[in-house]
């Protein structure tokens, strides 16, 4: 072989080998989220958070590039199942972030665990997700019990509520949250006058508000539904003079589900609304303020990030941290996540318990909506 030809072949072989190594040094992250259907606003906000986080790791982490592929799972168990199978087959992810809706998250959990791929959940509350013994499932969103128990305690102990009407959407998430409130509230001596569930297709809440008004003295109304329905529900309750925002006496209570901006949408009906929040854009922590600034710089000065943006952003931070600590495939990333303790993100600090559930809820706090629709942080816990 002539020297020139030999050199060319050697160079080509080296290039191919280098390319193979470079391709291998990638951590693939599949994102299963609703891009279509009524829950698609989750997908939009998730993507905003993820894209922003990826900018921080443009040059890779620990020599690994983070590669993301978005898929539409539509908040639907069936579509999420099919999408999970397809992405496992074609993209071969090391981590899958998703889904947002509890029913869809539950549907993909066994598939991902069977394939030994890490499932990182950022928005579902159903208890079953981390109570079913899945070894590859982790969740950075507080579960139903973690959200409902403080609500029940504050309702009974701080607000001195003795009667409640629980309102929830008819989903795994809604039912788990409702149950999570009912049991401890009744155990403390409170009385649940009614538990009212409704489908996601219910639009007009006047009849429900009328029914609640007819139930007599109601102290608190824990509510578990998506933002759009919550807005309409609060307005109907105000019109029926049930809640404080309409001149009534009952306090409506909400969970972390409700994104920042609900109060402005519900208007005066939101006055007096008490809820727990995990991500608070007004929180003074540097991590939070840096995130808010970066978010506004990228998406517009008038756009305030919601907890959905923040949780998705945090998911990438968490994967990157696992990679920084030596994770490079599903197994090693899983090991690193299992060991994760006190890792600071915008929604607090992440420490997973043995079941893969986030356990540090130190930043979770209560806020009350004021007359001018701003939040007043409350030191209740």
């Amino acid at each position, binding site marked *: 072989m002539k020297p020139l030809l030999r050199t060319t072949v050697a160079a080509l072989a080296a290039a191919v080998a280098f390319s193979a190594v470079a391709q291998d040094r990638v951590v693939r992250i599949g994102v299963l989220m609703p891009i279509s259907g*009524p829950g698609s606003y989750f997908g939009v906000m998730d993507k905003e958070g993820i894209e922003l986080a990826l900018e921080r790791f443009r040059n890779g982490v620990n020599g690994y590039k983070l590669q993301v592929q978005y898929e539409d799972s539509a908040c639907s168990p069936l579509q999420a199942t099919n999408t999970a199978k397809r992405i496992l087959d074609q993209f071969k992810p090391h981590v899958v972030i998703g889904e947002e809706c509890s029913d869809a998250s539950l549907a993909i959990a066994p598939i991902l665990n069977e394939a030994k791929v890490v499932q990182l959940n950022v928005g579902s509350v159903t208890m079953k997700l981390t109570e079913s013994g899945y070894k590859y499932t982790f969740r950075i969103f507080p579960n139903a019990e973690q959200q409902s128990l403080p609500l029940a305690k504050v309702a009974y102990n701080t607000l001195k509520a003795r009667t409640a009407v629980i309102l929830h959407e008819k989903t795994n998430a809604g039912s788990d949250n409702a149950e999570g409130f009912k049991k401890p509230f009744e155990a403390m001596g409170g009385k649940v006058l009614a538990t009212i569930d409704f489908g996601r297709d219910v*639009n007009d809440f006047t009849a429900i508000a*009328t029914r609640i008004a007819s139930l007599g003295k109601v102290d608190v109304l824990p509510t578990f539904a998506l933002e759009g329905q919550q807005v309409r529900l609060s307005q109907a309750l105000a019109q029926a003079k049930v809640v404080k925002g309409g001149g009534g006496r009952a306090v409506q209570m909400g969970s972390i589900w409700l994104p920042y901006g609900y109060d402005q949408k519900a*208007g005066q009906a939101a006055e007096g609304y008490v809820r727990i929040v995990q991500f608070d854009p007004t929180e003074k922590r540097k991590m939070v303020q840096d995130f808010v600034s970066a978010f506004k710089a990228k998406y517009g000065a008038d756009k305030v990030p919601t907890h959905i943006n923040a949780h998705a952003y945090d998911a990438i931070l968490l994967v990157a941290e696992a990679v920084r600590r030596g994770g490079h495939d599903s197994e090693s990333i899983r090991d690193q996540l299992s060991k994760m303790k006190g890792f600071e993100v915008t929604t607090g600090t992440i420490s997973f318990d043995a079941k893969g559930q986030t356990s540090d809820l130190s930043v979770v706090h209560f806020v009350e909506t004021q007359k001018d629709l701003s939040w007043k942080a409350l030191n209740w816990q």
Partner: protein
Amino acid sequence: MSDLVALVVQQSLNGVYLGCLYVMVALGLTLIYGVLNQINFAHADFVTVGAFAAFFTATRLATRVLGLPDAGAYLLSLIVALGVGALLGLAVNAAVFAPLRRGDELRPLIATIGVSVLLENFQLWLFGPIPYQFDSPFSRETIRIGRIFFTAQSLLVVAVSASAIAALYAFMRFTFLGKALRAVAQDRETAGLMGINPNLLIALTIVIASALAGMAGALLGPVIVLTPFAGGTVIVKAFAIVIIGGFGNMQGTILAGILVGIIEAFTVQYLGSGLIDLVVFVLLLAMLVLRPTGLIAERKEENV
């Protein structure tokens, strides 16, 4: 007024209001079926288009450009939504329904599914998936008579629905075009032999039905969670109402709409809101089994 009486009156009013919203959506469906013997699966999306047209008129065009007060802006948005619905009907008829009408009867039906998917995705691209907050100034006004309450918006919904129904009835009964339309509904070929242009009348039917859908969207906008999929949340109920009322029968649709609204309100009160669909669809199945012609028995010449 005793507690029970007040409650019954209140839930009846809630039911009538809800029923009027359903009727506004269902009327267009029944009109198209009555004249064309065809089901329009894109009707929900016409409603959504109307809602978005009203939203942008009320919150941008009328207030920011024309400087109208909120109430005037919302009333204008009803008219704009009606017009946008009519134009959409005209366009979809010319582009899709008219060319397909000559062939197999199944093709226009399938085409309506295609139009529905297309409109949904186009709106998703144009408006995005994040819900829009569409508040009518009339929703903020609560009228209280003793212990009974209702919003000015619900009063407006009932008034607009009643006016639309009356106008449609008068058009059908007392105008030449209305009579011609009924003739086409009864026998398209014979109507054609009498000098009536069936294609023109069919186009008119689709335009009227779409205009009604557009206006229904404007009325629903402040009630529903406004996304590109919003119409889908009421369309299943609207189909049920059309079947319960007697497919293609206007009076039946109105009666069924109000009935379903009232049944829903009392189901919420006494059985639980989670059972609404169960109760409505048991009623639907019962009607199909016991009285397949619907509440008002079908007499072709009296339809539409």
